[in-house]
């Protein structure tokens, strides 16, 4: 039996993993809720954003040294670029797919995975990349914890609250929520639906980019890590219920924490347990934990 300290470390790492899953899945869920497009390429765009942030960090830290502020700066720039890229993808590619059937939509985003992951290989090569921030480990109950976990958990909760505030309280958030229910009605009220769509896609991709930047200091980048992540995000979205941000949050906590503890006991089978949960939830409640039966 592992000691209390390592259990605690797993808790922190599980929570921070949950934050990553939540931020990615909420973008996925938002895009699906508004446009009915399941974006297979979401995690690949996340990886692209991580590499972009890495490059910005390399450039700026050469000028000003490896400081936290330099990282923030790089994250903001990469997020901005990815937001614009997301809007462009919606405008020029995804928009053509709205009248089509589900498999064709999936195929388009599948093609984007191939294109973007190869683009990453083209520009950044196959070797692993990581950035090093000067962080001292912190002692908690006899074990050493990377204090950056707390930064991640705080940032994740902050972004989640910000997203909630945006969706519930602001004018644009209300438009997005209305578009989930009835596009035609929103359009009839004189709101330009194409602009909303592009904005939501950009927002989802931007969220993914933000997540990538925040996780960069504890995450070595390598090709192909997006493929595992995207199916886990699907698992989170399905377990939580399509279109339910609250459900997505709970599901990410479940998946993140279960994953990090099963790594302690059965390292190779940790993901098998996640998919066992997914299969179980789909059989028991196909609409997810907090989803409404209506969409089923």
């Amino acid at each position, binding site marked *: 039996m592992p000691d209390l300290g390592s259990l605690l470390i797993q808790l922190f790492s599980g929570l921070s993993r949950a934050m990553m899953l939540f931020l990615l899945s909420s973008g996925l869920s938002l895009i699906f809720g508004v446009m009915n497009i*399941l974006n297979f390429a979401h995690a690949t765009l996340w990886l692209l954003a991580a590499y972009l942030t890495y490059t910005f960090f390399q450039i700026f830290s050469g000028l000003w040294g490896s400081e936290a502020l330099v990282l923030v700066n790089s994250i903001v720039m990469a997020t901005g670029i990815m937001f614009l890229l997301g809007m462009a993808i919606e405008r020029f*590619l995804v928009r*053509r*797919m709205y009248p*089509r059937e*589900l*498999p*064709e939509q*999936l*195929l*388009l985003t*599948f*093609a*984007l*995975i*191939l*294109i973007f*992951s*190869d*683009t990453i*290989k*083209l520009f950044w090569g196959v070797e692993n990349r990581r950035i090093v921030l000067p962080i001292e480990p912190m002692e908690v109950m006899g074990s050493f914890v990377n204090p950056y976990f707390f930064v991640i958990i705080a940032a994740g909760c902050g972004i989640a609250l910000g997203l909630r505030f945006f969706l519930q309280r602001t004018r644009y958030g209300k438009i997005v929520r209305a578009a989930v229910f009835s596009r035609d009605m929103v359009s009839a009220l004189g709101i330009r639906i194409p602009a909303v769509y592009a904005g939501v896609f950009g927002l989802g991709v931007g969220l993914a980019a933000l997540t990538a930047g925040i996780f960069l200091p504890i995450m070595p980048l390598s090709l192909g890590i997006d*493929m595992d992540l995207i*199916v886990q995000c*699907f*698992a989170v979205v*399905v377990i939580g219920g*399509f279109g339910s941000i609250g459900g997505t949050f709970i599901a990410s906590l479940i998946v993140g924490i279960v994953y990090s503890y099963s790594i302690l006991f*059965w390292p*190779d*089978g940790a*993901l*098998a347990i996640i*998919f*066992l949960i*997914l*299969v179980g939830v*789909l*059989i028991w409640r*196909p609409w997810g934990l907090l989803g409404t039966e209506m969409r*089923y």
Partner: protein
Amino acid sequence: MSSSGATHKSGWFSDLYQKRGLSGPAAVILFLGFLLVPLLPGKFPIIVGTEVLIVGLFALSFNLIYGYMGQISFGHGAFFGLGAYATALLFRYFQMTAGGIGYFGFFLSLILALPLAALGSWVVGFFCVRLTGIYFAMLSLGFGELLFYLVFSWYSFTKGDDGIQGLLPPPFFQDATYYYYFTLAVVVLSTLLLWRITESPFGYTLRMLRDNRNRAAFLGINVRRVMLTNFVIAGTFAGVAGALWGPFQRSVSPHILGWAESGKAVFMTLIGGAYYLAGPMVGSIIYTALNAYVTRFTVFWPLTIGIIILVFVIFIPGGLLSVIDQRIRFRLSAGKVEEIRKGEPVSPPGGGA
């Protein structure tokens, strides 16, 4: 045949076209083409051809679920993998007990893959057919990934990430050409069976489920049972393709169970044409042959195929065969327009007089 002016549009091609649609002539052309592949110089075309056939059969079995039943499965690779692993493990068993694999052991391990794939697809299908649309896709994805990680992590039984190596078939099938013709025979037999199934009342029931499930249910069709039967048939044929895979590659590895592998079946089907029996095989030719030859010139194969898929999805949504189908139909009807202009009677399809 008729001696009227319409005969210039007659001939085996248009006869078969009018009777069987595009898939009839396409199947004949594909079959003749496959027969002649070993005449090409070098071993490379034979190896590519074998892969085209095996993956094509896998895509054909997937299309039973997608093109005919209207559901999309992202876990179909699991049954391909089940078939492949069943054959591989039996291979190892025979090799260890008998010191080598004989013809009996070879065929037995191929054939025993079928009931295992059927059983696996029955268990998965039992749950999947309760759902439709995106939920069907997600549940099949979940089961597929579950199986993938089980195979991946159960090292003592499946050798995990290393895969199972050294699957050397008996001497006769070690020759690439003979194994190619053996594969061709199995694939042709399977395709004939699939064709029988899709043209049977059962096949038309599937099309009805695709177009309108509720109406089918009102007519007294047991929707879930039909879907489950079809799921098991599709899974079994995927198992056939998987069984052929191990002796061809001389090894199996767990990645063949993953969702990216299932995704390949999806885009082969869509590139070729989901509403044609021959569509997935055409897609397999485009994908696999391109893969084999493009990777010789560039390492950026995913970028190439990604752009090809993008172009297909946006500009040729029905797949390659639908474009050809439209061209043929246009030319056949253009011929008739000319006859009408000349004042000659138009003969009905299939000749007359």
